[in-house]
């Protein structure tokens, strides 16, 4: 766990990542709060807070007496949201560092392309 941010956000993000990467598919059951708590060695109330955030965002839905399931369309909505944050989260810091090092925008684009070919 990362020290800088609330754990419940990180729990929510990890489940989101599993949905985006297809580890958890739509209509599939997500781990219970007790399973999340035991796995991450965190307080169950914190795990519940993370799951509740996913419920509030409509990413997972509760089926009474059974558990939490990935909501239909969750993956598409998550990707849309992550794309909206992509520039601020990843591009701005990259550009700031590039400017500091005197890398202009064309050179940066070239570096990105070269990196992509390598990987």
């Amino acid at each position, binding site marked *: 766990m990362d*020290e800088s941010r609330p*754990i419940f956000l990180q729990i929510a993000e990890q489940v989101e990542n599993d949905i985006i990467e297809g580890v958890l598919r739509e209509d599939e059951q997500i781990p219970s709060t*007790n399973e999340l708590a035991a796995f991450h060695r965190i*307080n169950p109330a914190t795990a519940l807070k993370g799951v509740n955030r996913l419920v509030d965002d409509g990413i997972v839905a509760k089926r009474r007496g059974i558990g939490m399931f990935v909501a239909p369309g969750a993956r598409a909505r998550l990707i849309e949201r992550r794309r909206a944050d992509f520039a601020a989260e990843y591009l701005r*810091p990259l550009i700031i560092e590039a400017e500091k090092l005197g890398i202009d925008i064309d050179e940066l684009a070239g570096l990105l392309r070269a990196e992509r070919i390598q990987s």
Partner: protein
Amino acid sequence: MTRTVVRASGLTKRYGSFTAVEAVDFTVEENRIYGLLGRNGAGKTTIMQLLTGQIFPTAGELEVFGRPPAEHADVLRRMCFIAESQRYPDAYKPLHLLRAAPWYFENWDEEFARRLVDDFRIPLNRYVRKLSRGQLSAVGVTIGLASRAPITFFDEPYLGLDAVARHVFYDRLLADYAEHPRTIVLSTHLIDEVANLLEHIILIDQGRLLLDRDAEEVRGSATTVAGTRATVESFTADRPVIGREHLGGQASVTIDGRLDLAERLRAKELGLELSPVSLQQLIVHLTGTDLHAGSAGEEAAA
């Protein structure tokens, strides 16, 4: 919703001219795990002794399950207190202690106790005086967990316990708490180890309450900003400062309060390094000498 099981207001304990606990106000809500944190001699043990009715307050109000705990059998039988360096009669064996425990704890789970004995490898048939400090701590932790008391106090429960045994304790505590929710108050100085287990934090320093907050609110609530002195000073100028260090032209200032994405980007543009502050580091800042030096405290108040 949750029920308040402990209510302390103006709680004070004096020993002659020494004030161990001074006008402390807090509540404990049912079925949560609390961390009672602070430096050695801060007053943690005194507060636990007050809550468990072992000593009387000098002043203030204290209710546990709706009544003052001291001399109220119906309150006392609902609690389990595992003291720091808990002692047991020398002529006893762990076997005897575990046999006697259900007389005091009505929720005692014999099977769970047996499993913990195996987990901690407690020699049941050895005299208490022959047990190592770690084995004695393991006996205390076993009794504390298997008692399943509605409110359980662990005061620095793991003197002499090795890292493996401590993690057994954390894992069993979490698993059992999930199945049998109850109120747990844990006092420890191994803050980073237990930080994620806690739901709420009560921080005591020199007998006073310094912080009473949800653990999730505390996490990430402080940031250290490092870089060239002038830039750091201007970036942190209007924020509550809780720690400050200088080295030549460089400065490292810890501020209370979260930074949003725009502020983090601005810091990066200014060439500043931001780093998260762990709960343990935050407590070091809050209870350390740098705050008591005066100037930082005034800035935090401003």
